[in-house]
């Protein structure tokens, strides 16, 4: 047996650790929660880490999971040991290749972080829906239940596949295992080498396609032999269980860790047994240990090798005394007679009886249950409820556990107070903000405790669904015994709140155990802190007798140069008062960890953190808790009283973190939700918000134009509308002649919805004549003005919107008088994408349908609890849906086809009913061209008259026309997505849709990287940028999507950068929508993945344009008909060096810190690339110059 090395890693790294070492070719594509496996592989490859044969695996990112599977299939056929990683929809895209790979009996392992599939909604969280959808492909399936098992089974799978010639899916639960950090025994290279036999590798290579000994594989077969061919594989599947078992035995000899195909734990004479697989089995194992001590005759069977399913081994593993069996599936197959594992178990036991081989005295009762979909908590209390159910005379079959199903009544009740948390285990919950470093600090703490003590350690991290002001909760367990608790902490003996404002927003102390320690980051002193706590928090502290400590970590951070980063300080406090390590020792360990973490980035950072540690100890204080609660701070309800019922009953519960308590009946059955609900979610995440100075303002509208969250708005109105305005409401006369005399103008901020990104302040061009530091928009602390600005905002909203028909929407100023129908999304502060979406909704929202590719825009656009798309007072607004990542263009085309068809049907009916509704009305409706707002408005009026008329006609045609008449008014189809979709996974479909000539508007929010999954390279990523999957910097140039589209000749194309030229962006949007064919707008979208303070994004966008990184242009296919060049270059000759732009962003600059020589090479290459690109565009723009004609309008 080899000596073990304890390491602290998560499940993804554990799987990648093995996969990388035993592979030669690795094809990757990002998808949550498996992306990290590919990221590890790419990073190791970039650092030239060898595999066990001393060579560096070739890691290649593909354009989709389908592509990754194809590349793996090809690499396998050509004889390289290959692997890939994926989850969910990605696995679905791999299925066609999986059939092929299995059909050809080719060894490989696909590592899957199992995740839900998109059905009534998308979910990134964990269950077995994806792997169960691949169970029929012929891949063997091996399941890991914990981080340790993930590393172990990964190796067993790789060893077994080579021996069995059957490909394997190795899966583990997404997030719960893939993202849980645990202390495990590392599988050493010597163990890996001992498990992977050279002769198996040689045999595999022997089957490689090579012209040196040619064969063909992948033939087409006919009815005569295909069937027989399909049966040839049976012996391979028959012997696979034994091969896996042998590998497990070999592994046990090498490591001491024993596994079986089916692992039984529990009483040898158990009568009630649960069969399941995945991380939930660990919680069940923990419960079984407790219940056995209480004398219960129960057991648990963990299924490890799910395919091929060995009936014989399964039955042997069960106790002979078995009377009833609950089979738990973590997937749902609507309409089936049971979920997959249940059906397998029923079949297995039935067959055993049928064959007379059953070891049981009687045929056991078998019940199926479903649990844990989309990472729904699965606790010992729920598992106990299942065991208890089996005790009943007539247990429920096809039950659910973990929810309240008040519709189909499938759910089991469970005791919410039942807990088996061990007192000997340290259980800490830490509340933090995404960017305050809480998660990183906790990962560091786990490392310190895990590496420096004998304790086992577990860390699990939960994030909310917002990208700005994201709340993180870290769950840490430490203890002398292995930790199987695959569920959140139910009672904590340590609770830390790193952000004081959370006390007003969440029940931070809900899970604090009596006598627990409570650590609070508070801006108040020892004498003041108690009085500033909400009343309910005071009550809890007193009632639970909490040991209460506080520190002003922000002050310490400020004084030690740490800015707003409180991580090191709060971590030091944790060690100082938790008693996990002796105080002095822990300080030394923290400093060592700081040196390890930050040392590579320079001494200054290390010293700064050291200083913070030293100052922390001096500033931490214990709060004397009074006898009774005295606070006058009483928390108000989460939403306003006048919110709709659905918002109050459903949305509000989700916002408050109580979504788990909602019963089935409260959830829409088909995934349909109301729009316009973000306005009820007052998040108050900005410390500072913009304040308008009406006397300095020049009313240009730029602030509202660039605002990512629709929180800063302008309105024009009549003086009479001011009646009843709050005293602090600001108003001024409109400037210029765009609006009538005597009209008033206001810029108003939504104080509770602003994220404080400061883009508006940066873009504001107006400065005070007496103080150039003062602009027309300036930031001010939110708290002192919250209430007054709330009243002002509410008043602003009730002022009627200005008549759209009178607005010059082709000017930036005019466009910003239009109401945004996309507001308060959860996008990052300073998001570069959302201003474009908001603009589209302002211009076309009343007639807009959005097909949204999966990605950031589908998350901030459609992730519960609230929806930023909204409607105007008429009720009209964007209708939105997300199909998949890869099919968005096709999905949007579907909208257009349906709309066109319905319009044609309506026109046909209109003609038929012409005599009844009036020829002149029919003619004017049919002849309306609807090319501008006024025409569209007029058509709406005509259709209203038409609907009124036909409502009085009772024929079938009239009824049909009534349901179709609205389609006589122009509808605007918008296909929106990021560059990952448009350049990579969805490009084939996008190309086809553009080629189709259909009237759709495609908006590509180009961040030059896969933003939503954490910054992986796309084909839009520029040369020299460091990204995930391009850890060594991208060596090749970005794809010219616009040029490809232009090549058709009938596609309107514009490349825009709002921060560089807002007027150009506006013009492009208007032209694109007006163009009656396909339009493509490629919009430069700064993203946090670029690595700079997005407050400065407008300046950076200008630099992108000035340096030639991002050329502005429009290509209008209508122009040649007017004798004009269709291509108009709207940006000037580059006037700065590209490096001046690149050096402002960490994505480029970090390459200089990783590999300066390569950075120099790629910087040079990048400059050459943009030079050539400019020359080409310039030539294109001058093509018709001989005639002196370009469209510069």
């Amino acid at each position, binding site marked *: 047996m080899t000596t073990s090395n304890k390491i602290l890693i998560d499940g993804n790294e554990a799987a990648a650790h093995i996969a990388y070492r035993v592979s030669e070719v690795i094809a990757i594509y990002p998808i949550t929660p498996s992306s990290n496996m590919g990221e590890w592989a790419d990073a190791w490859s970039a650092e030239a880490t060898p595999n066990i044969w001393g060579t560096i695996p070739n890691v290649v990112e593909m354009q989709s999971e389908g592509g990754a599977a194809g590349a793996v299939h090809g690499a396998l056929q050509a004889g390289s040991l290959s692997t890939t990683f994926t989850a969910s929809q990605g696995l679905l895209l791999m299925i066609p290749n999986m059939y092929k790979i299995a059909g050809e009996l080719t060894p490989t392992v696909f590592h899957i972080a199992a995740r839900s599939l998109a059905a009534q909604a998308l979910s990134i969280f964990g269950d077995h829906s994806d792997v169960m959808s691949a169970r029929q492909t012929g891949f063997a399936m091996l399941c890991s239940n914990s981080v340790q098992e993930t590393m172990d089974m990964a190796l067993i799978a790789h060893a077994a596949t080579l021996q069995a010639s059957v490909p394997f899916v190795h899966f583990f639960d997404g997030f719960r295992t893939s993202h849980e950090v645990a202390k495990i025994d590392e599988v050493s290279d010597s163990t890996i080498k001992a498990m992977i036999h050279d002769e198996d590798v040689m045999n595999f290579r022997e089957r490689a396609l090579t012209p040196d000994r040619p064969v063909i594989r992948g033939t087409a077969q006919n009815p005569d032999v295909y069937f027989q061919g399909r049966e040839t594989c049976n012996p391979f599947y028959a012997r696979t269980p034994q091969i896996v078992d042998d590998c497990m035995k070999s592994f046990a000899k090498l490591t001491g860790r024993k596994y079986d195909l089916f692992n039984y734990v529990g009483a040898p004479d158990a009568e009630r047994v649960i069969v399941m697989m995945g991380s939930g089995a660990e919680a069940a194992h923990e419960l079984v240990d407790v219940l056995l001590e209480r004398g219960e005759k129960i057991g648990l069977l963990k299924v490890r090798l799910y395919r091929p399913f060995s009936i014989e081994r399964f039955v042997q593993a069960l106790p002979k005394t078995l009377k009833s069996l609950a089979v738990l599936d973590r997937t749902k197959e609507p309409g089936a007679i049971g979920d997959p594992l249940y059906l397998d178990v029923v079949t297995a036991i039935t067959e055993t009886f049928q064959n007379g081989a059953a070891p049981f005295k009687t045929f056991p009762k078998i019940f199926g249950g479903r649990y844990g979909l989309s990472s729904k908590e699965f606790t010992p209390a729920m598992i106990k409820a299942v065991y208890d159910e089996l005790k009943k005379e007539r247990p429920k079959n096809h039950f659910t556990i973990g929810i309240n199903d008040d519709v189909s009544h499938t759910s089991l009740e469970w005791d919410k107070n039942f807990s088996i948390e061990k007192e000997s285990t340290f259980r800490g919950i830490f509340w933090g903000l995404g960017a305050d470093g809480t998660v990183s600090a906790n990962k560091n703490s786990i490392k310190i405790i895990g590496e420096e003590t004998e304790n086992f350690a577990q860390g699990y991290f939960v994030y909310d669904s917002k990208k700005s002001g994201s709340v993180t909760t870290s769950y840490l367990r430490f203890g002398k015994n292995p930790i199987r608790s695959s569920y959140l902490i139910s009672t904590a003996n340590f609770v830390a709140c790193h952000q004081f404002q959370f006390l007003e927003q969440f029940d931070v102390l809900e899970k604090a155990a009596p006598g627990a320690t409570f650590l609070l980051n508070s801006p108040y002193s020892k004498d003041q802190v108690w009085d500033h706590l909400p009343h309910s928090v005071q009550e809890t502290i007193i009632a639970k007798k909490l040991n209460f400590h506080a520190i002003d970590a922000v002050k310490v951070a400020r004084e030690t140069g740490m800015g707003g*980063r409180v991580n090191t300080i709060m971590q030091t406090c944790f060690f100082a008062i938790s008693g996990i390590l002796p105080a002095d020792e822990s300080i030394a360990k923290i400093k060592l960890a700081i040196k390890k973490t930050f040392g590579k980035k320079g001494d200054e950072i290390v010293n700064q953190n050291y200083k913070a540690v030293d100052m922390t100890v001096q500033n931490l204080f214990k709060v004397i808790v009074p006898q009774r609660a005295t606070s006058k701070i009483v928390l108000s309800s989460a939403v306003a009283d006048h919110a709709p019922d659905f918002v109050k009953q459903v949305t509000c519960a989700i916002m408050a973190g109580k979504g788990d308590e909602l019963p089935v009946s409260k959830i829409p059955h088909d995934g349909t939700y109301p729009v316009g609900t973000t306005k009820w979610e007052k998040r108050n995440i900005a410390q500072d918000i913009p304040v308008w100075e009406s006397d300095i303002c020049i009313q240009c509208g730029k602030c509202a134009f660039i605002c990512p969250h629709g929180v800063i708005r302008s309105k024009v109105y009549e003086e009479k509308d001011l009646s009843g305005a709050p005293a602090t409401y600001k108003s001024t006369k409109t400037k210029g002649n765009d609006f009538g005399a005597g009209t008033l103008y206001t810029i108003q901020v939504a104080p509770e919805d602003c994220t404080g990104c400061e883009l508006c302040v940066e873009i504001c061009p107006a400065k005070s004549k007496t103080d150039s530091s003062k602009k027309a928009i300036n930031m001010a602390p939110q708290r002192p003005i919250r209430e007054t600005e709330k009243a002002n905002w509410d008043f602003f909203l009730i002022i009627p919107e200005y008549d759209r028909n009178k607005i010059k929407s082709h000017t930036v100023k005019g466009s910003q008088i239009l109401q945004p129908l996309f507001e308060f999304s959860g996008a990052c502060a300073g998001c570069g994408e959302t201003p474009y979406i908001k603009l589209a909704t302002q211009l076309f929202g009343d007639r807009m349908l959005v097909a949204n590719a999966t990605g950031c825009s589908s998350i901030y656009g459609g992730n519960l609890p609230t929806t930023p798309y909204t409607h105007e007072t008429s009720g009209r607004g964007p209708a939105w849906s997300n199909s998949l990542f890869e099919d968005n263009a096709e999905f949007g085309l579907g909208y257009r086809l349906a709309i066109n068809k319905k319009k044609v049907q309506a026109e046909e009916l209109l003609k038929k009913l012409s005599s009844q509704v009036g020829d002149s009305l029919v003619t004017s409706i049919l002849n309306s061209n609807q090319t501008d707002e006024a025409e569209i408005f007029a058509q709406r009026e005509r259709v209203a008259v038409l609907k009124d008329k036909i409502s009085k006609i009772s024929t079938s045609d009239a009824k049909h026309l009534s349901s179709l008449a609205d389609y006589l008014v122009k509808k605007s189809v918008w296909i929106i997505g990021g560059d990952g979709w448009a350049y990579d996974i969805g490009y084939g479909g996008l190309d086809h849709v553009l080629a189709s000539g259909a009237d759709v508007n495609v908006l590509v929010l180009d961040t030059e990287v896969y933003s939503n999954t954490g910054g992986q390279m796309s084909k839009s990523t520029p040369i020299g940028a460091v990204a995930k999957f391009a850890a060594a910097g991208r060596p090749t140039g970005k794809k010219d999507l616009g040029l490809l589209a232009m090549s058709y000749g009938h596609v309107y194309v514009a490349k825009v950068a709002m921060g560089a030229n807002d007027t150009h962006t506006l013009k492009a949007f208007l032209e694109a929508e007006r163009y009656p064919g396909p339009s493509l707008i490629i919009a430069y979208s700064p993203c946090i993945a670029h690595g700079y303070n997005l407050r400065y994004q407008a300046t950076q966008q200008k630099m992108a344009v000035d340096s030639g990184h991002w050329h502005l242009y429009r290509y209008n296919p209508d122009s040649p008909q007017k004798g004009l060049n269709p291509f108009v270059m709207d940006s000037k000759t580059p006037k700065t060096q590209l490096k001046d732009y690149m050096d402002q962003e*960490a994505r480029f600059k970090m390459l200089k810190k990783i590999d300066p020589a390569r950075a120099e090479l790629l910087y040079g290459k990048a400059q050459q690339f943009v030079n050539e690109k400019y020359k080409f565009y310039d030539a294109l723009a001058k093509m018709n110059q001989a005639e002196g004609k370009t469209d510069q309008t």
Partner: protein
Amino acid sequence: MELQTDYMGLKLKNPIVASACPLTKDLDRVKEMEESGVAGIILPSLFEEEISYDQHAMDQFLNYSTHSVGSEATSFFPEPENFKNFEGEEYLESLRRIKASVGIPIIGSLNGSTAGGWVKYAKLIQEAGADALELNIFFIPTEVNLTGAEVENRYVEILKLVKAQVSIPVAIKMTPFFSSIGNMAKRFDDAGANGLVLFNRFQGPDFDLDKLEAAMKPSFSTHSDIRLPLHWTAILFGKVKASLAATRGIKSGIDVLKMIMAGADATMITSLFYQEGVYCASRIIKEMTHWMEEHEYQSIRQMKGSMSYIHVADKSAFVRANYMKMLRAI
């Protein structure tokens, strides 16, 4: 013609040294300078802020603002095992490369304003092979309560810290804004400065009236800029142990000779390289040689300090009377 000179113990084949500027980090340009006769190179400054900024910016963007944004994106950048160049490695590597490729002395340059951790780079620059170090202390005392003495002490303190790190000669590039330049020169001299460079040309901000913003716009020295260093070189010659280098406004061989006669051991050029190209050095040398031949000088040594304060007959040209005379001449 004997043009050799000794600057802080460095043997220069002539007095022309390229000042710290972006050109001097480019090996090809440096080689061209050497070919055209430049006798020494001062590398661009390694800035305190640059070292500090890079460390902080990378820390912020790699560890905080792009971290834990949500379940799907727990980070946005790969985290390499090893980083380079947070501690000036690129600068040091460039120094090594240039040092290995040319024969003329190479002087490193450090630019900072605090007695912070950055002074350790002095030692690293020495280890990388620099023949000497130039210290550029760029400190703008915008706080009106800060006294002149406090500012002066800060300069001397930084010099001492740097001197303690290295054994190679250290020059300090002086600001002309001290109340008593001579006294500061003496204090630097006493603190161990091996060279005094007269003077640092502060690039003040310009205003953009359209944007109502102050903006940094680099500008070139003009010929009249020569007066200030000429004046002070002449005054300081013979009064300090340290070598003297004159810089600002040097456009011709005559300008170089003026500086030498004032007492400079070396003269430094930047703007002209941009305005005329790096080969201007050969023109300057030709002009120097021609003038010296015409006027029957044999060596630079001969004329050094010959017109300094201590050697001119009419000292009034160096003091207040001179000012009055000039006014009358207008």
